[in-house]
């Protein structure tokens, strides 16, 4: 039997890493990857609790999250490509028109 807290800590580590990646990476695609990390961490969490609470709902929900993540990546990449088309760059630092 796996201790719940271990799984949860694993999930936490993944999540924190994802956060760091979102904040620190310059390439927009890499940012999207980091977001995937975060989503995965959430999924792990859900599944762990599904087992902990003896409910299948957690897994079902994780399934939905995966679906949503897929949709989001699709759209996100489309946007990134559009930005690249218009600006020749996908450096998020340079996409900052909405500023003071």
């Amino acid at each position, binding site marked *: 039997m796996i*201790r719940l807290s271990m799984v949860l800590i694993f999930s*936490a580590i993944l999540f924190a890493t994802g956060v760091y990646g979102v904040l620190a990476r310059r390439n927009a695609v890499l940012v999207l990857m980091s977001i995937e990390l975060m989503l995965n961490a959430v999924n792990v969490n859900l599944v762990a609790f599904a087992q902990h609470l003896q409910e299948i709902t957690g897994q079902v929900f994780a399934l939905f999250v995966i679906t949503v993540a897929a949709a989001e990546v699709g759209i996100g990449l489309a946007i990134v490509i559009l930005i690249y088309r218009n600006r020749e760059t996908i450096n998020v630092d340079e996409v900052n028109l909405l500023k003071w």
Partner: protein
Amino acid sequence: MTALEIAFVVVAVAGVIGAFRVVTARNVVHAALYLVITLSATAGVYLLLAAEFLAWVQILIYVGAIVILFLFGLMLTKAPIGREALDNQRRGVAFLVGAAILAGLIYLVVDAFGWDETRLDPIQGTATEVGGSIFSRFVLPFEAISFLLLAALIGAIVLSRKDDPVVRERKERRA
């Protein structure tokens, strides 16, 4: 420390290392590949947690489709391949925030569940079970998700269409 736990620790460590390398790799393609490792490790964790359907779905979708998408994206945007500063100036702040989140989460977990108390008993995570739950209790979200996918599909197509002649000409004039 049961056998499952040892297996889990091995898989988890692999996943963690992969995650670290995703966010610190100098080469974007390497980062994508490390993401594969992490995603696979997660699938492994699912297996260990008796969520077999979900594990295979994870492999299929994430590793099989999403990472491919990422790689295509990287290709289409001519991501710089090679050693280059891929991190911005805010690394310090980001590290702090990440660390804070980690600390907070760990604290919460420990506070709520302690180190040793809870042990997870396996659950039936077969496709039968999952499917049964989806199509009975969660049929509405399921349908909504379908719509979402459809919208995303259409949106992605629309977004990445070629520009119409007028806009293209304007862009060429500008270039």
